[in-house]
């Protein structure tokens, strides 16, 4: 008897998963969530490694495409030793990145890159200032998104247009059913990746669909934050409001560095003698150094100035110039991992309420 199959859907049992990953790892570096001591982090997968499916990753996977620290080029200066007048400077391009697969990104993480894309693709410059480093990695990375079954208390993807099985930004979706994973291609990149897999049965397809629908029902009803951009602008000069909201903040960078949509960086030359490298590394707006100007003036001297900017950027300034899209994917890591329990949802809702009373 020929089983009815759904050709767009593929199935891999957990037993066969290592073989599939090994196959992927032949053509790309496969990043998968791994439990390491108390954290779950994305690590290059190699045969024998477990993939963590139970706990959600502590960090986002943005570093695969936007490395924490990336060499832009290296340099060697003349002018030392026997030829002090030699003013030459030899520059060497950094090595080309290789293809990558992020296996088990969350749907919020995949949507996070959509906040990066316009910024790094020359928005505001008519496409002239395109960031080749980011775009190169973005183009050769395939995102396999694992749909969520349940929300965490800190999850609010539904507030910002996402959901547990959102395919936005994903190349393929995978959903846990019974003893394995059901895959579905979303993009051509995703289809190419899944090509060799056996088709799923119609029953398996239906089971995955049912599982996703059930998950959707478990996620929180979105709060209405349409007013946020205007409210936050209205409160720009309300220092007492921001001081109160910020009192407990430690102004560390945990929220920023765990955030799938925070894309700010710093550039430094790291030299040792006549040789060195130019690095682009993550920076964060909660740090006082972030806006310290050469003159010594700092337009955001206090932590309340900085947290105001962080929230304002995500829920007001960014959406204003990017068709209303918030630069927040609602993953909630900034809440979950904040050592001081700062809750960005509360700040946004309080701002809307406060602005209505002004």
């Amino acid at each position, binding site marked *: 008897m020929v089983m009815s199959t759904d050709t767009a859907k593929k199935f891999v049992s957990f037993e066969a998963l290592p073989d599939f990953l090994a196959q992927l790892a032949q053509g790309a570096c496969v990043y998968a969530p791994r439990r*390491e001591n108390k954290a779950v982090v994305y690590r290059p997968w190699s045969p024998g490694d477990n993939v963590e499916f139970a706990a959600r990753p502590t960090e986002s996977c943005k570093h695969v495409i936007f490395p*924490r620290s990336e060499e832009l080029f290296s340099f060697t200066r003349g002018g030392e030793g026997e030829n002090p007048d030699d003013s030459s400077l030899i520059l060497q391009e950094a090595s080309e990145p290789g293809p990558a697969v992020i296996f088990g990104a969350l749907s919020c993480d995949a949507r996070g890159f959509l906040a990066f894309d316009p910024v790094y693709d020359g928005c505001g410059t008519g496409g002239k200032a395109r960031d080749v480093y980011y775009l190169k990695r973005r183009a050769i990375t395939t995102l396999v998104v694992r749909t969520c079954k349940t929300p965490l*208390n800190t999850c609010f993807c539904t507030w910002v247009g996402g959901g547990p099985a959102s395919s936005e930004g994903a190349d393929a979706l995978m959903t846990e059913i019974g003893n394995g994973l059901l895959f579905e291609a979303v993009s051509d990149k995703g289809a190419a990746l899944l090509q060799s897999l056996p088709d799923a049965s119609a029953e398996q397809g239906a089971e995955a669909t049912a599982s996703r629908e059930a998950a959707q029902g478990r996620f929180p009803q979105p709060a209405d934050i349409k007013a946020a951009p205007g409210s936050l602008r209205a409160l720009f000069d309300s220092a007492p409001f921001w001081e109160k909201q910020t*009192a407990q903040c430690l102004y560390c*960078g945990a929220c920023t560095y765990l955030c799938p949509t925070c894309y700010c960086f710093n550039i430094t030359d*790291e030299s040792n003698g006549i040789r060195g490298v130019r690095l682009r590394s*993550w920076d964060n707006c909660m740090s006082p150094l972030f806006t310290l100007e050469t003159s010594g003036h700092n337009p955001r001297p206090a932590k309340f100035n900085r947290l105001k900017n962080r929230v304002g950027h995500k829920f007001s300034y960014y959406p204003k110039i990017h068709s209303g899209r918030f630069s927040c994917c609602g993953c909630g890591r900034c809440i979950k991992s904040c*050592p001081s*329990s700062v809750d960005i949802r509360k700040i946004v809702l309080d701002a809307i309420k406060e602005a209505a009373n002004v």
Partner: protein
Amino acid sequence: MAIQDDIKSAIAEVLPGLSCVIGWGAGPEPLRAAPLFMRDAADVEKFTAGFLAVNNPALFLPALKGAKVGLVVKGCDARSVGQLVAENLVKREEVHLIGYPCRGIIDMDKTAAALEGRCEPGEVKGLREEDGDIVLDTPGGEVRLAKTDVAADKCARCRYPNAESADVFVGEKIAPVVERDDYADLAAFENMELDARKAFWEMEMSRCIRCYACRNSCPLCVCRDHCVAASREPHWLTQADGVRDKLFFQLIHATHLAGRCTGCGECERACPVGIPLLTLKRAFSRQVEGLFGYTAGLDQGMPPLLTFKLEEPAIKEREW
């Protein structure tokens, strides 16, 4: 809880004379409280103490210098205040301490481990404290955990549960959990071969995202905006994403805290990727306690490594 109401009364009584009182209130989810800055009677109503009173309120003191501030403190928090005062970083008369007997606080990582196979801590919908247990409302039903199983490590070696330096103490003082700290955790670590220890730190530090939550959550880390890690001129640390620089920073941090660290463990708790940073700090604390007989947060005067004596009583240099 009756003691909760008594603490609220103690706060309400002193609040009019203070710029604020810092304690704990409801957090973003059932297993987590948040630091609470109380400025009026309505704020005081939000106060909660107990197993979730995790954050060390002493952290906020140096930034509030010049105004009189009240703190509700656990024994370990009071030690941080004591050390800030000993080092002249905070004026004792500018602080009003409200102590209570602390019976331990929750450790989120241990709770996660205890819940493994059932749910993530972030899926817990409710919590109630019942004597020595916490009862969690999880998607799969109620889960009862013994507090001692999910309390912070520091609580199992607590010598000072009572905030002895408090201006007001609410409730009955309780006995210390242990009489002395045997540093058994360090012994276990030091039983590892050197190569294994190196591999351990390389693995742990490779997860570091350089958010400096460890630094910013440390009540004694008072350089704040002038940290060596942030300085560009001179450029002490590179921005390279390597274990070397990350561990370098941790060793600087631990060295700066040698003899000053009171072991509150906030650095380790704050670390989003779970690097066991307190191990480094405790190794230094043990040395300083042994060599100089100085216990941070309890003894008066400058910590030994911030001062100089021609002859240290415990170091028998002439006998070497």
